[in-house]
């Protein structure tokens, strides 16, 4: 009696629930297959962009969207990060020492509002980002241009002192501060992207930080796509831009960028057919996904270095032998295999591998015996008397796991006790820049493919140094590299500088990044990129 009554009741409940659910759902085909057949890419983009003005934003999700809407002088090459592809410039040349560059803009280059793209638009845009009033964080990227730093520092208000010259409508001449053969690569960064002067002037003017030109209604771009819709926290949709010079070779009809912050949600969306690309994969899931869907899990090199900053102003870390002991006394191979699991490379130097023409350092190797010896020389044989120190991490489960592994390996190999404490992101940034830490978890992603983007930050007084370390010899080498006559010489000098860094070790290299994400196998033309700059116009769908 009891059972049957209960069964009737539950059946009734189930029938109601399921019935209403079935009625509510739209049925069959996967969203991702429908979108693929329409040529629309469903893109997991990490978070809501803070804006779409290339001169004011700094983040990766912003970059993903802006690079579909605006094209610089140089475009992304479909397969090779280092090869410049023609963009707004159809041709370019430089003088022999790479200090003066002349760009010939294509005649059919047009903005989405119908204006032609002119050389003066680039001059206007670069003046805008360098104007101190605008307060652009990425303006220092343009310091390669002669006079840019002085203009940006407010030493002069005359932009004609800056080495940017629109010779005629379609010819732009740029004079650099020093020989820079990799200037073309820097031009792919969005800080060098043009903005439409008419749109900017009509919406608040050149120096207005809250200028309305980059909203959905007013956006003007010159890229393969144009802005179609923007629903906050939901989706930003771009569609094919008919005024783009190479529109006939753009294969996709549109892209929808979904700002999904939660990795687990993103994975659920991917598995239920609502995304073609995710921005990340939660580290815990990597091993099982490697087993179940190896054709969908992507692991690619990514130009970034994960390391611990060491506060060299605090004992015992003011002693270089202590820093060296710590750097050689943990097993990086074990760490990347068992803890991070995303195919990362154990870092034997600071500058990540994969930069063409630059010799990857192999200086810092795992050697616990050497570590013991160095620590003993520093006066802490077997860790006896080693003061209590701590690793600062920003709050995150994955950083904590890595720190715990480091802690355990240092304890085993050196006999020292190191604590771990976490701070919320903004507090952590404050602590790091005010040198209020012992060891601080850090990471750095390159802005362009060159060792200088990693090494310049450790010069004396650089705002990103944050270790208290300073070396006149190092500073001299970095300065020398900036003036080097050839790329080989420059790489050679930068290598020497890196070796100084690795001998002094204000940073403890841990691993070099990879990018781990999921991709629908129908999506083609999506080649590995060390900077994650995607040439969307070469991407297309093909059923398997």
């Amino acid at each position, binding site marked *: 009696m009891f059972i049957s009554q209960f069964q009737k009741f539950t059946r009734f409940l189930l029938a109601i629930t399921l019935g209403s659910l079935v009625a509510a759902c739209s049925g069959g085909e996967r969203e991702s297959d429908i979108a693929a057949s329409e040529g629309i890419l469903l893109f997991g983009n990490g978070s809501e962009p803070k804006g779409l003005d290339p001169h*004011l934003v700094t983040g990766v999700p912003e970059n993903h969207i802006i690079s579909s809407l605006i094209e610089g002088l140089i475009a992304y090459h479909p397969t090779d990060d280092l090869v410049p592809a023609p963009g707004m410039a159809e041709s370019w040349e430089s003088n022999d020492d790479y200090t003066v560059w002349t760009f010939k803009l294509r005649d059919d280059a047009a903005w989405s509002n119908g204006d032609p793209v002119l050389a003066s638009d680039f001059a206007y845009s670069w003046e805008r980002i360098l104007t101190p009033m605008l307060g652009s964080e990425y303006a220092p990227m343009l310091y390669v241009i002669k006079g840019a730093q002085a203009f940006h520092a407010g030493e002069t208000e005359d932009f004609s002192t800056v080495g940017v010259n629109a010779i005629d409508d379609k010819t732009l001449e740029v004079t650099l501060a020093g020989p820079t053969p990799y200037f073309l690569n820097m031009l792919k960064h969005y800080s060098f992207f043009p903005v439409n002067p008419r749109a900017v002037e009509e919406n608040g003017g050149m120096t207005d930080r809250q200028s309305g030109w980059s909203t959905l209604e007013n956006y003007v771009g010159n890229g393969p796509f144009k802005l179609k819709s923007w629903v906050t926290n*939901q989706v930003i949709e771009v569609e094919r831009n008919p005024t783009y010079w190479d529109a006939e070779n753009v294969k996709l009809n549109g892209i929808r960028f979904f700002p999904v912050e939660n990795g687990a949600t993103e994975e659920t969306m991917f598995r*239920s057919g*609502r995304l073609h690309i995710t921005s990340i994969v939660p580290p815990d899931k990597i091993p099982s996904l490697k087993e179940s869907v190896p054709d969908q899990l992507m692991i690619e090199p990514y130009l970034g270095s994960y390391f611990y900053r060491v506060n060299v102003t605090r004992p015992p870390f003011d002693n270089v032998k202590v820093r060296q002991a710590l750097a050689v006394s943990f097993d990086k191979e074990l760490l990347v295999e068992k803890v991070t699991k995303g195919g990362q490379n154990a870092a034997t130097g600071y500058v990540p591998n994969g930069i063409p023409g630059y010799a990857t350092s192999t200086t810092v190797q795992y050697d616990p015996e050497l570590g013991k010896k160095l620590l003993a020389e520093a006066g802490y044989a077997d860790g006896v008397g080693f003061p209590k120190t701590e690793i600062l991490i920003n709050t995150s489960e994955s950083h904590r796991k890595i720190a715990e592994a480091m802690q355990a390996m240092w304890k085993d190999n050196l006999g020292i006790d190191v604590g771990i404490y976490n701070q*919320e992101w*903004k507090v952590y*940034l404050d602590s790091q820049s005010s040198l209020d830490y012992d060891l601080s978890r850090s990471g750095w992603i390159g802005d362009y493919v060159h060792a200088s983007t990693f090494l310049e930050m450790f010069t004396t007084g650089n705002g990103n140094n944050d270790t208290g370390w300073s070396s006149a010899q190092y500073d001299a080498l970095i300065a020398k590299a900036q003036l080097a006559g050839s790329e080989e010489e420059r790489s050679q000098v930068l290598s020497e500088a890196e070796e100084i860094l690795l001998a002094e070790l204000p940073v403890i290299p841990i691993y070099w990044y990879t990018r781990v994400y999921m991709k629908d196998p129908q999506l083609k033309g999506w080649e590995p990129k060390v900077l994650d700059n995607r040439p969307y116009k070469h991407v297309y769908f093909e059923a398997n």
Partner: protein
Amino acid sequence: MLKFVAGRLLQGILVLLAIYAVTFFLVAATPGSPFSSERAIRPEILAQIEAFYGYDKPVFERFMTSLGNALNGEFGPSAVYANRTVTDIIAESFPVSLKLGALSLLVAMTLGIPAGIVAAVKRNTWLDYVPMSAAMVGICLPTFVMGPMLALVFGIILKMLPVAGWFGPEFWILPAATLGLVYAAYFARLTRGGMLEMLNQDWVRTARAKGVKETTIIWRHCLKGGLMPAVTFMGPALAGIISGSFVVETIFQVPGLGQWFVRGALNRDDFLILGLTVLFATLIVVMNLIVDIVQVALNPRLKYE
């Protein structure tokens, strides 16, 4: 009654002012700035940005300006998101939160209240044990377990419902169910308690002795009083659902207020934090006032005072 409402509103305004001041100075005292980032910003650039948003002024002057603006209903621009004022953000996300909250409350009440009534009337039978055990599980099971479980079952295995987003009615079901189930559990337990108290009253015994039908006793005499605890809970529940749905919003990618609140705090987006705090505080003050009025209307033993 008018006097009561006016008095309570005045109290509410004072509470809001106090909350505004406390929030402002706490935020101002928190380390970190909306403009700090992993890449160092040159001091001269930082100064430009700070001047643009008025951060170069002394803190008390900033407080007075900000309070003055707030009294005019203007909370200023977001310090982090370009071209958005705090008012824009609230205007976009509040309706979403309201819809999610109302749906969840509907789920919670339609499941919870009948279950509570049945459990009280059929005390110590399986109609009591089963729903009440389920309610206990519902209260204990956090939304970050329930949400992914529902997404797994209905989104991935059964392929019946979308797992994330807010693009149409079918997208509302899973988040509203996740949030609603937790509150349904509370409503069930509260209603059961309230009904039991009523059913144990002397006048219920008298009514039974006089031969009044059991259904009449339950529906006409006990229900009104029995629902009191649930009604009292409704105000805080709605305010809590609207403001505290951050987890559910994150799991299901719902563009509501909860995400902005957390993001505002993490970004140190001062104006946004202030705007949202005032909004939530207002919501709670108003909800509590409404609940008080409803309570007096339902319970003749209470008077406005």
